[in-house]
């Protein structure tokens, strides 16, 4: 039996397509003057956490805005992602409980 015969004998339950890893975005040296989206995923107490983060970012000179997901347990709607991409240089997502 060759390796090829052995492999063909099974049907994989996996989706075997290889997805190349997305490279990480370049990290800025400073947040001063950066446009930063603060994404509230609607998890309990996430707003409090973002309030603290936002005040510190603003103190460092960042230009912030808030945006929210419909519900924390589902992926963000494409419109939310598009708005973050269009309006910001950086994004902060808050997970809390």
């Amino acid at each position, binding site marked *: 039996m060759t390796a090829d015969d*052995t492999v063909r004998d099974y049907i994989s339950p996996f989706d075997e397509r290889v997805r190349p890893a997305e490279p990480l975005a370049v990290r800025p040296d400073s947040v001063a003057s950066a446009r930063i989206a603060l994404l509230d995923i609607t998890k309990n107490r996430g707003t409090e956490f973002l309030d603290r983060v936002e005040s510190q970012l603003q103190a460092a000179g960042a230009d912030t805005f808030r945006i929210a997901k419909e519900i924390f347990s589902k992926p963000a709607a494409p419109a939310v992602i598009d708005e973050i991409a269009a309006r910001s240089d950086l994004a902060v997502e808050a997970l809390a409980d």
Partner: protein
Amino acid sequence: MEISDALRRVSTGLPAAPGPAGPLAPGRRAPAIAVTGIEPGGVRLDDLAGRGAALLLFVSEECPTSALAVRNLGPLCRAWESAGLSATAVFEDPLDVALRVARTLGWTGRVVSQDPPYQTSREYGLLAVPTAFLVGGDRIIAASVVGWNQPALADLVAKGAALVGSGPLPAPPATEPLLKPGCSSKAAMDPEVAAAVSRPAAADEMEEMFERGWTDGLPVVPPTRQRVEAMLGGADASSSLGPVPPSMGEATLERVAACAVLAGCRPAYFPVVLAAARAILDPAFNLHGQAVTTQPAGQLVVVNGPVRQALGLNSGMGALGPGSRPNLTIGRAIRLLVTLLGGGMPGTLDRATLGHMGKVGFCVAEDEETSPWEPLHVERGFDPDQSVVTLIGSDAPQNISDHRSRTPEDLAYILAWAAATAWSTNWWPLAEPSVFVICPEHAEMFRAAGWSKQQLREFMFDAVRKPAADLRRGETTPVVARADPADMIGKWASPESIVLLVAGGEAGRYSAVLGPCTGMGAQIISREVEPL
């Protein structure tokens, strides 16, 4: 005599035969590779080196030094990969053997295999395994190391980091032995000797399933082509039910059938598996949230209609427990779909703090013949003679013993209050469904009293109430937090949050309640079981 001939004599004891002349030196162009991997469409060197650089580690199963190299380098591959340095173990063994050895030794990079006469090893001039080559994005060999040589391999990794322009990459650990000679490459052996030392393929098929990761932790039925085709029953293998969250693997019918085979389903069960798969993939079910949550939620499959008898599904004694192949394997097939094709495996994308055993598989058939009420699927708009699956995100069952109630009111009160701690003691009200599985003896009391299903549901809804003041310890809901202390808060947001089924053995007054999956916005989804 050249060195290669001398080495060949030492390693094999045979006279010199035409073979490799020694590993290709740095600066030479790396030859193409002729190998087999699990990826469809084959593996090309340009793909491996294209994102920066490639490390090729030639090894073989029989060689202890190869095992040492695979074990020491294996855990580092992912970090290299994320920096653009791909890592590939090139085995001089059949692919199934290569995959088994790689998994056993913790290799996290790509695995490929060569058939005799090991042409790729020959073209790279291999005399020994392990031999490592570093190949740049320009396909030029930048470094090579023969045998296990920790300092040289650390240097090779540093060169790889420079090629991909990253910071320092994790190097092999400087633990003993730092140096260990390798073994003869099969490409450098007499072909008959190489064949003699090659192990037979697939020594243990069941173990191989674990090595491939095609399991939920229990033994599975190997999904041979023959079995998968039998499961498909002529259905179009390539048609798709759509992506399976959370990793969005494409649910071709062939892969769904492979999951059903792995789970132990008979082909006759496949229409039920397909209907349940369609139900969990309805966006309103929010499988994405259910699959990745820290909650214990599993996916409960409720089966109604004639298909229960046709397949022999158990709705009687031990209806929520072991013993019935169709119940156990249909539920398991759905969970394998989520874990294997959807990537929702506990410890990876499934972040459940505890989980529960229903996440192995959870399928119950309703005892419609014993029930005094219309069955679940009829409540949900189907005809009694339709076969239907209903999917509900649910927690583990909690037993409710009541052998003493003599009125339907007392029994309904006991049943309802058993659910007071569902989700959490003070989490009131619940909008998501609590599923009550009513045993036949309990159901008989409601039948004798002439209670309708809706009457019972509304009684239970009204029965479980507490003042808000009593619900303010620890975690509670915004409803409780906003209420006046004397306000009476119900356990459920509406009677419709109470789902009632009948199942279980004829003797014993034990019903059960299954708590909800909350916070997901997950709806109950029903789908008719259709012929293939």
